[in-house]
Structures are given as C-alpha cells and as structure tokens.
C-alpha cells in the first residue's frame, strides 16, 4: 500500500491491521455515499418517487448500533494483541541507551560506542532502547519500523524492535520540542550481523559499563559503597533486577529507574537498614554519566568481581 519500507518485525503485522481497517472503512464510506447519493437522486424535489410515510424501525436502529459495535470490538481485540507485543520486549533484547536533548539524539551502545543522530543496529536482533531526555519531551520515531515512543526528562521510557531489512531509515523527533524540532532527526542504520560486528569493532571504545566503573571511582562512589569502606552503605553487588527492602517497609524492584533515582534523588527511597546520608548527584553529573553508572551497576555482581580478582 505504501512507499514506506516494512523494515521491522512489527511492520507487516501492523500494516495488515491497517489495511484491513482501511478496507473496512472504505467499504463503509462507499456504502454510505452510494446510499446518500441514491436517496438524493431518487427523492429529489419534484421526482415522482413514492413517498408514503416510512415507519421508524427499532430493528434498523439496533442493527446499525450493534454491527459497528461488534466490528469495533473485533478491531480493538486485534489491535490490543499487537499492542501488548509492541510493549513487551523479549528477554534477549539488547539494550541501547538513548539520550535526547534539544535538538539531537545521543546514542550509547553497551560496548561504549557512541553516536549522534544515528543508530546502528544489527538485522534480526531484538533491540531495546532505553531512553531519557535532558530537557523537554521528545519522541523517538522511526516510520519504517512503525515504532514511536515519547522520551521524557527524568524518567526512562523503552522502545523495542527487531530490524528485518538492512538499510538506512529515517529517524524523527515527533513531539514538538522547540525551535529546531524539525531538524532533530537522523537515521537508523540496520546492518547484517557481520557488518554490524565490524562496525562495533571499528568504533570500539571502553564499554559503557567500564566507563561507569571508572566514574564509580572518580566520583567517589566507591569510597562508601565498596565492601572495605568504613562507611555503612550498601555494597551494591547483585542489585539490578532484585527487590530491595526500603526503610518505610515497602519493597522496590531495582530497575533502571530505581538506580537512576538512587543516584540523583538518593533521599527518595532509602534502603532498609541504612542512614539517608548519600548526597544527591543531581546537577553534578550529566545524563550520559548516569547511564554509564547504571550500566556499570547492572554488571556489578559478586561473581564478576571474583573473576576479576582471580584474573
């Protein structure tokens, strides 16, 4: 139907739904127009058509109430099932971090590769974008993939897709974000896995987690959070993905949002058994540094630490 490439695993299914709905609406439109025009011609003023008073049928009303209702519910069910898929990234999806700011997209790969206004992804591998904004609300939109997600300040939103076709596809910001909103675009470049591996290698730098680890020492986090430290602070091993009991008796899942909040708003949720003594890093470090720290904390497991030491 469209000139738009179907470049993600969602695209064919979404287009299928779109085309069906288009067909349905087309039929309704043509039907109503044909009936309207037929009536207008047949019953035009001065025509000899028979005009005995028509009775009003409850049955007719109910028919054209219930049939659309059933059709709408059908479309709804179909759409919801796709929607849930769009919103549920698979476990093996590879995370890539995106920071939006007026008016550019900054991308960080877990391996430390950074790019601006482009995003390289391998074909066939589910990619999960973890996105945040440094200023206003933006929206990450790749029409060829049929995906879009607003990017909010001070909060993580997620978007996932699997590219199915190699090539370069347009990336737009689709939430109005100020003067150069229309220029805040770029491209997503989907590559065959081998090419992607080569690209990663060519742009290799310190991995994001490694950068985070360096920051962890530079910023003095390790001063309190290392097991050897004299300060009573959690050692942060095996934190990510586990539940943390809080001092107010509740529990929280240590996800990316929690890790970020703990760095920027340490007073918001206090881990049970610890004094609220951590200073806030808000305004002292940028969103990218936070991402690196979070990436590091996600890999900070006791097992990794041990193997590190034995090496």
């Amino acid at each position, binding site marked *: 139907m469209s000139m738009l490439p179907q470049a993600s695993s969602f695209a064919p299914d979404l287009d299928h739904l779109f085309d069906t709905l288009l067909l349905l609406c087309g039929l309704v439109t043509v039907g109503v127009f044909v009936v309207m025009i037929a009536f207008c011609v047949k019953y035009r003023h001065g025509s000899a058509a028979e005009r005995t008073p028509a009775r009003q049928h409850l049955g007719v009303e109910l028919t054209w109430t219930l049939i659309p209702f059933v059709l709408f519910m059908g479309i709804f069910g179909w759409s919801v099932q796709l929607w849930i898929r769009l919103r549920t990234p698979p476990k093996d999806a590879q995370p890539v971090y995106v920071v939006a700011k007026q008016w550019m997209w900054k991308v960080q790969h877990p391996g430390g590769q950074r790019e601006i206004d482009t995003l390289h992804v391998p074909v066939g591998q589910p990619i999960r974008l973890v996105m945040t904004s440094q200023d206003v609300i933006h929206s990450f939109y790749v029409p060829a993939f049929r995906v879009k997600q607003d990017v909010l300040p001070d909060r993580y939103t997620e978007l996932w897709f699997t590219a199915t076709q190699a090539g370069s596809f347009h990336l737009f910001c689709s939430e109005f974000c100020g003067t150069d909103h229309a220029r805040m675009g770029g491209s997503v470049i989907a590559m065959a896995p081998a090419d992607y591996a080569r690209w990663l290698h060519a742009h290799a730098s310190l991995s994001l987690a490694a950068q985070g680890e360096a920051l962890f020492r530079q910023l003095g986090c390790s001063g309190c959070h290392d097991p050897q430290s004299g300060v009573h602070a959690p050692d942060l091993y095996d934190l990510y993905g586990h539940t943390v009991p809080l001092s*107010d008796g509740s529990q929280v899942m240590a996800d990316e949002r929690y890790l970020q909040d703990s760095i920027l*708003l340490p*007073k*918001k949720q206090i881990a049970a058994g610890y004094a*609220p003594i951590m200073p806030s890093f808000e305004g002292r470090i940028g969103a990218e540094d936070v991402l690196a720290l979070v990436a590091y904390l996600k890999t900070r497991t006791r097992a990794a630490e041990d193997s590190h030491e034995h090496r």
Partner: protein
Amino acid sequence: MNARLHPVPEQFDDPVQQREAATLGMWAFLATEILFFGVLFAGYTLCRVRFPDAFAEGSRHTDMLLGTIETAVLLTSSCAVALSVREVQLGGRRLASALLAATAALGVTFLVMHGFEYVAEYREGLIPAIHYTQQGVYARGMEIFYCLYYFITGFHSIHVMVGVALMAVMAWRTWRRAYDADYHTPLELTALYWHLVDIVWIFVYPLVYLVGRAG
C-alpha cells in the same frame, strides 16, 4: 408576596420560574467549583503518592492547633448562616441579620488566623519561591507540598473573601427588609455558596493538617 418590591425580570414568566432558574444556576456553579478544587486535589493526591514521606513531613510543619480552630470557626459560621435562612423563612429579621453578620465576622476571623499561619510559615522559611529555606532529606518533596498548600488554601481563601463580602451585603439587605418568608432566594443561594466553601475546607483540613500526624 409583593410583586412591586421584587419585580420579576422580563425573561421569566413568574417568580417560581425565576426562583427555579436561580437555584439551578447556583447548583450548576457549585458543580464547576467542585471541579476547580477537584483538579487541585487530584494533583495533591498524585504528588503525595510520589513523595509520601515528604508530604507527611510537610504536614507536620503546619500549625494543627490553628487549623483545627479555623475548622471549628468555619463550621460554626455555616451553622449560623443556616439558622439565619431558617429565621427569615419563619418571618424573622433582626436575629437573621445578626446571624449573617456573625457569619461574616467568623469568615474574617478565619482569614486572619490563616494570615497568622502564613506569617509564621514565612518566618520558618516554608514559602516556596519567596522564602524557602528547608534543607535535608525532604526539602524537595516538601516544596511541592507547600506549593500545593498555598495554591489550595489561597484559592480557598479567595472564596472565603468573596463569601464574607456576600454575607455582609446579605446582612445589610436582610436588615433593610429586602427578604421575607416569601422571597429570599438570594439569601438562600448565598448560604449554599457558603456551605460549599465550608465543605471544601472539610477536605483541605485533613489533607493539609492531619496527613503527617496519623500513626
């Protein structure tokens, strides 16, 4: 009923229709008022979910004693205005007028007490954007609490001020025999308005003063 004293405006057929229209108009207006405050309460609720402890802490900084007295003052005033309407319905005048004046006076008392609260809070550095000196764990969440606190109580106080002015006018007009057992729609509607102002406060009081003190 004296038609010369209370002429029915031209758009109405008779006094009954006029009264119905005025009453329905007031109720409709009160419905919009509930939505005005509703937004603020909704905002309050959502922010409190985000910062439960800071809201509790902020609440502990409010003056519960004054808040409680203010609540009593408003409730008493609502009672006074209700009695006054009944008095007029029964044909009374002097007592009714005095009760209305008392209502206005209680309203002023409420405003003055609130003024004292604001001054104390200024000294304590609790007024966001103007004089906010809180530090520590809850400073940020408390700032939002106080922001909403001033917005809600300020908006409510404006309503009290309008109410006080209306009460004064009503007291004067009742004294001047403008209302009698047959015709007292304006008085009745003003009373309705005052009850709304009172009811809103019944919601504000626990949200602001009691939140941090439970348990």
